[in-house]
């Protein structure tokens, strides 16, 4: 009987060591966190007085908006698409909020959801163009990036806004200003910004979504083999649009939080965050071919970048060094990852 023979041939009864993939991720993330520790150690050796909790808090604060955007980008990259427009969405959210609230006197409690909704709308626009008109996402979002920057210049009239110093003929109610500033107020004895808490909450939500929900499971499947997913009648179109919308919403939220922290809007804000955010996602182990990416990796990538940036600005050898490091770390991290993957494969097989 063929059945019994097959089972006899099987090397061992199929036991499921859920540990294998977990170990895989742990190794990958472990390497990243090792790098984070090594970099921190190097800075501390060079300049021992950076080793304090306030500095740690600053690193976490400065990584938070990059991390929030990177989490959204991770979803888009996992589903096998690219989004170049989140930085422009971030800037649009800030400027739209500033103009609605400070110039037109819309209550901040309404203006914030409106700014985020505007971001979501851009996400729908990106998603629909990519899925329905089948325009490559690189091109669509490159277009939206420029388009939104134009809209931002127009809406803000190329001006800068600060709710604490509104234009001469406008007033911002104190209660609204206090609420807005308190969104990222320092809490606890180490004056950790509330923005860090927002980042952690968002990371947990995105983590559950990506790694513990049907949504994330299918996102991974679609990113891994979009044609197979279509033939298996998985909801490819809807999920891709959802990924773009979530990315846009998270970019808008990051904008609102950063505005609350910095309190000054500029028309070109956010545009320069495009490549650092990409770098964080890629350093975190996501694959541009889709189907691969983790929340913990992306957070690690953002942390490593923030640490490098802050550390280097304290050592202040000049802005060129920061840029050079950003480039080197991006390539180095991916090279290291590929090397480790090959090592793991040759060992396990």
């Amino acid at each position, binding site marked *: 009987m*063929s*059945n019994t*023979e*097959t*089972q006899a*041939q*099987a*090397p*061992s009864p*199929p*036991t*499921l*060591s*859920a540990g*294998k*993939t977990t170990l895989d991720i742990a190794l990958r993330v472990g390497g990243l966190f090792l790098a984070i520790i090594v970099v921190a150690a190097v800075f501390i050796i060079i300049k021992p007085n950076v080793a304090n909790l306030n500095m740690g808090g600053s690193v976490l604060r400065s990584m938070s908006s990059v991390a929030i955007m990177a989490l959204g980008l991770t979803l888009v990259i996992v589903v096998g698409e690219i989004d170049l427009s989140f930085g422009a969405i971030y800037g649009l959210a800030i400027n739209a909020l500033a103009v609605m609230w400070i110039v037109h006197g819309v209550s901040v409690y309404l203006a914030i959801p409106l700014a985020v909704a505007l971001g979501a709308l851009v996400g729908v626009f990106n998603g629909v163009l990519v899925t329905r008109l089948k325009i490559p996402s690189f091109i669509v979002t490159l277009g939206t990036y420029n388009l939104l920057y134009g809209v931002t210049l127009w809406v803000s009239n190329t001006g800068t806004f600060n709710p604490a110093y509104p234009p001469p003929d406008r007033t911002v109610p104190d209660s609204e200003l206090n609420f807005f500033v308190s969104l990222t107020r320092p809490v606890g004895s180490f004056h950790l910004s509330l923005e860090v808490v927002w980042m952690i909450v968002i990371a947990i939500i995105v983590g*559950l979504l990506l790694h*513990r*929900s*049907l*949504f994330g*499971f*299918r996102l*991974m*499947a679609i*990113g*891994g*083999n979009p*044609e*197979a997913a279509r*033939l*298996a*009648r*998985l909801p490819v179109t809807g999920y891709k649009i959802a990924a773009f919308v979530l990315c846009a919403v998270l970019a808008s939220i990051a904008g609102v939080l950063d505005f609350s922290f910095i309190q000054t809007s500029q028309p070109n804000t956010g545009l320069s965050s495009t490549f650092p955010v990409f770098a964080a996602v890629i350093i975190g182990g996501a694959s541009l071919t*889709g*189907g*691969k990416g983790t929340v913990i990796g992306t957070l690690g990538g953002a942390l490593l970048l923030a640490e490098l940036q802050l550390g280097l600005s304290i050592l202040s050898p000049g802005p060129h060094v920061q840029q050079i490091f950003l480039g080197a770390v991006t390539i180095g991290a991916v090279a290291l990852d590929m090397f480790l993957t090959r090592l793991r494969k*040759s*060992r*396990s*097989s």
Partner: protein
Amino acid sequence: MSGAGITLRGVSKRYGSTIALDGVDLDIRPGEVLGIAGPNGAGKSTLVRIIAGEERPDSGDLTFDGRPWSPATDWHAVAVVHQEPQLFPNLTVAENVMVGREGGGSGKPRLGAADAKVMDALGIGHLRGRLLADCSLATQQRTEIARAVAREAQVFLFDEPNSALTADESDELFREIHAIAAGGRIVLLVTHRLGDLVEYCKRVAIVRDGKVRTVLSGAALTEEAIARQLVTDVTAVSAAANTRAAASGHAATGALFSVRDWSHPKAFRGISMQGRAGEIIALMGVEGSGSRELIRSFAGLERCTGIMEIEGDRTAASLQKRTAYVPATRLLSLYSNFSVGENLLVRLGYPDIAGFGMALKVRKMRDMAQSAVKRFLIKTRTATQGIRSLSGGNQQKVAIAQALHCAPKLLLLEEPTRGVDIHSKAEIYRLLRDYADAGHTVIIFCTEVLEVYEAADIAYVVVGGALTRPLKVADYDHVETLATDITQLEQERRKEPKAA
């Protein structure tokens, strides 16, 4: 031992703890076609990769015309012709032949006289200016051969070269293969088709469990002999045919599935057919006949007009829930970023693998994956290992199991055993038979009559977008008579539309 040709002595290769090749001895002589056969996972592909220079052996010696030889460094001596040509679709046929040997000039390279001669000899000279992407698969393969001949390759390795060709095209291909061998070159043919091995090879080496078990030649080289060497128990192959005989009495119930006046904008028109629970229906038809579109249309993947009904239901949404489709190639059904277990469950959703708030039922998924591995006889160490670590036959079982998990009333499969070894083939036929017996209808699109004979109850041929009358497979005692009838039906119908 020296002599003309390639000699392998004690060639071994291991991947981690798995021994892929365990001391292979083989002589490959110039001027003959040597067939290589073996079940998947037996080391056949590793052997081929070593000869092709894509892998280096751990130990053992290779010699070429008596001299030590390493195909990994002498790679340009070896040409591999794959079933899917590895060429440049954006270049013309002639450019494909030239690429890599353009010479040192800075201008645009021109086609040399020698290259032109090679292309003419292969019958693709008149197509030299055409874009490769616009050429048929047969032409693309010829281009690949021409490319190898032009760079004076000495060793030709054909890997399932005719699996996607029509009968005529593959006859011609084999004529070319013989011409190459007659020119004193070394030719290897790897295929699952036993008939081709017997007809076109002088000797056939059987690889099993990492060794060359035997080399068949002369009178000993028959399909039966190869089949017996490939599987330890030949009965597994004919088991499927026997169960069909037993089951054919079972189909007395009414139609489970039916289509009426089913039409596609391009591929087919006015098709009516039905299927009962317990039936396996085979669709046959050459490329372009509309048969592939027909089977896809049943899965709701093609826009069609007409009425389709499953158990009285006609709405698109509920039809989709009652059907599941398995594409012809595993590239279109498996997710390489997923484990075996995830691949098995990927088509499921709420409430099977996810509960409230779309939260995945992780423990349930683990149990389901484990039991699916057992139920579908998938040979894997764990359900968490990567899907690519499985052999082709086992990957195919995963692809089919994926669809079976949706518990479709109507299961649709395109070429369910393409590129699968005999043993897995028998297991897949059994899976399909069991599924039909459980009260479902199964429709398979086949390219080989043997598959129809072994797996199906009823066969339809699609010719020029229309169905021929159904053939009852149980009425045939021999596969040959079934093949004759199918060919006849195909020709009868083909004449009609041409006359009109």
